[in-house]
């Protein structure tokens, strides 16, 4: 049970993200939903690479040689950077939409989805 705790957190995060994405009307909350979903996936990737008793995969002054897998961490880093770009882009769209219509409510316009 305790070993599976991170995976349960992943499921909770993804469920929360999907909930925000599907049922919230505020555009900023939709973006938050996407980011939470993305964080869930990132946590899942990180968790994949964990080995019991492993240390961070750095050779500099390492106390021992059992290390966690570095590959999922590299993947996660890439996906964090991409997520950052996506969120920045969407927030700037929201700024412009707000300037244009004076509202960030998705129901007011045909902006579902």
């Amino acid at each position: 049970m305790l070993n599976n705790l991170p995976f349960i957190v992943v499921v909770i995060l993804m469920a929360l993200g999907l909930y925000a994405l599907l049922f919230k009307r505020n555009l900023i909350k939709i973006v938050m939903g996407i980011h939470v979903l993305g964080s869930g996936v990132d946590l899942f990737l990180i968790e994949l690479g964990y080995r019991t008793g492993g240390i961070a995969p750095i050779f500099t002054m390492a106390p021992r040689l059992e290390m966690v897998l570095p590959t999922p961490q590299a993947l996660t880093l890439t996906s964090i950077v991409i997520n950052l770009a996506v969120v920045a882009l969407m927030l700037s769209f929201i700024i412009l939409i707000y300037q244009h219509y004076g509202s960030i409510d998705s129901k007011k316009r045909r902006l579902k989805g």
Partner: protein
Amino acid sequence: MILLEHVPLLLIAIPLLTAFATPVLGKVNSFLRNFWIITALISTELMGIWLGHDVLKNGIRVYTLGAKLPGLTSPVGFPIRIILEVDAMNAFIAMIVISIALISFIYCMRFMEWSRNLDKFYTLLLLLLTGMMGLTLTGDFFNMFVFFEIVSISSAGLIAFYVHRGEALEAAFKYMVISSIGALMVLFAVGLLYAQYNLLNMAAIADSIQNSFVDKVVVALLLSAFLLKAGSVPVHMWKPDVYGEAPVPVVVLLITSSLVSLFILFRITFTVFGLIIDTALLGWILAVLGILSIFLGVTMALIQSNLKRLIGYSAIAEIGYVLLGLGSGLIGFPSLSEFGVKAISGGIFHIMNDALDLSLLFLVVGTIIHITGKRDMNQLGGLARHQPSLALLFLIGMSAISGLPPFNGFASKLMIYESVYRFNPFLTIVGVLGSIVMLAIFVKVFVVTFLGIPRRKDIKEVPESMLAMMGILALFIIVIGLFPNLFVDNLITPACQALIHPEKYVEAVL
């Protein structure tokens, strides 16, 4: 020559280099910038053609980044490494992408002449091209995710290019939400695959795959993500908005990007999971989605008056034909009958024709908007009197897209109909009906827009370069329509064989 062995990579790297050089050169001089972009794209085009020729002659090419051999320095298993793998199918799609991109860039030079912020526009456009080339040529799942996101981000930026239009912003936001959900699905699927096999390479995964429950989840996730991007029926809602609002050269590249994602879809279903999953079920799902796309595309196109939205809906229907062909081919996979092979080649052939026809129609409509400033067809009329060449080009495009005999749409649709009829006559009937309704719609558009009394006097002239680019597309359409066998034998059949023989794809890497 040393450069030739790097061609698969240069196809991605040269647009990338050009994209980053564009803002710097644009500060110097806009003519220099345009010259540089066109030169780079023409050289990329030549390399693409050379690569296609080479792959057809010498077989699959594998390019490894960072080391000479794909499997080098691995204590256990296959190393995580970026690999580009080009077989006949990849090379075929890459040639389509780069040719359409070249045409739309040259068209762009005059079309966007008076816009602000052109440096950034070209940077994004080139990044979009880079993403598409990467998606086409990559042989690695995580790499695919990265290129998927490059395509999403850059195209969202381009869709919102007309920032003063609120609808464009909304369309871009919608597109971005949908494609980032798709990208997260891809990432999750990649994570699941990595968890099971410790591998990220497509060929290596295809080699070591077992039919576990998690694999089915992975297939479902990847399938829905790429259908989202391709804009087939249950998730088509972004398409008309985006195609209606984006600048026309961007729309042409977006059509190509949705065809590229269809290609990735088939690469995944045939090559990676083809031998283990229940292909009959999957094939039926794809064929039914194709039928629904055709039905919905043409019915919704009937009631549109905005020209770009109308063609956007017919683009959904065209995606439906490709799905129909390849889906019914997938039903019998891997023990394919002759008709299965024919359905698959028809689908692949239709990818090419689709790109040509839709691009031509969109470019003609873009020119109409450019010279009149109106995008609603009820405000237009009698354009044939001012612009007979434009009317002729539109006529060619619409006949090709609705599958009239001497044009290319007929050749590929006939292949699809013939073979799908053997699986299920009902599917064919819906397909034929869809084509007929589409013809009716486009006849209506043609009559309203080009015939009748001219309503407006202030019509600008069409720049020659734009006309020339549309002429080239029309030429291709006619040539393919007149000599379909030439293209089917030399391009489509090798591509189809590459798709239905996954074991060769696997062997080339391992």
